[in-house]
């Protein structure tokens, strides 16, 4: 039986996300990190820190990309916000489609990674690409 991490969408957990299991992808220790915080809150934090592979025990899968993993599992989707100071916002589906970033939560490095990823998966990031193109004019 394989399980999916409710924080980052990693879909190869060997055991259910509970009882002090540690997700190799995002590093969430279930029962500790999510004791009072929601999975959506932990997801925002992981994403804001760059959505990097956590484990040094489990090798990072080839071509793995944490941000893409989130989008592929449907935990977040991208959208642009008219007149936002940032060109990218990410909507988290975990908390009633709450917009988790459109005003500077992401570092410029994370934004760069989002834009780069948007160029490689245009079906997901069409709005990001158009926003980026507009910003470049």
């Amino acid at each position, binding site marked *: 039986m394989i399980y999916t991490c409710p924080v980052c969408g990693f879909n190869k957990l060997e055991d259910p996300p509970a*009882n002090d299991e540690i997700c190799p992808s995002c590093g969430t220790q279930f029962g500790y990190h999510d004791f009072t915080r929601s999975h959506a809150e932990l997801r925002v934090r992981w994403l804001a820190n760059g959505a990097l592979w956590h484990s040094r025990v489990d090798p990072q899968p080839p071509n793995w990309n944490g941000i893409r993993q989130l989008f592929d599992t449907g935990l977040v989707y991208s959208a642009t916000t008219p007149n936002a100071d940032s060109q990218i916002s990410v909507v988290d589906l975990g908390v009633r489609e709450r917009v988790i970033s459109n005003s500077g939560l992401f570092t410029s490095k994370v934004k760069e990674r989002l834009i780069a990823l948007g160029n490689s998966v245009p079906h997901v990031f069409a709005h990001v690409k158009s926003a980026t193109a507009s910003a470049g004019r």
Partner: protein
Amino acid sequence: MPLTFRTSRKRARHFQDHGSDFDALNEADYESKAGAFLTNPLNTNTLEGIRPRDNATIRYNTVTEEYGIISSDGYIRTYYKPDPTLHGLPSNLDYFNDNCNQV
């Protein structure tokens, strides 16, 4: 028989995240320290509870801040020094008590 984690991979993962809490030299050293904490006779500073939710045994030392869990079938689940900024409760004692009260 000394206590162990259920698998070497689980031991390695917990060592990565928590080994430095105890200056553990390696995975085996970390596991040994965990086993000692979880099986040594209780002292005046160490609290122990059985969590109703899963019958896990939980120990917490109020001085050293050590915290560990043994599953109901006798494996080490985890061993670390809790951080209130991570579990979100005011103190580690609150965290221990709340855990012991989970049904």
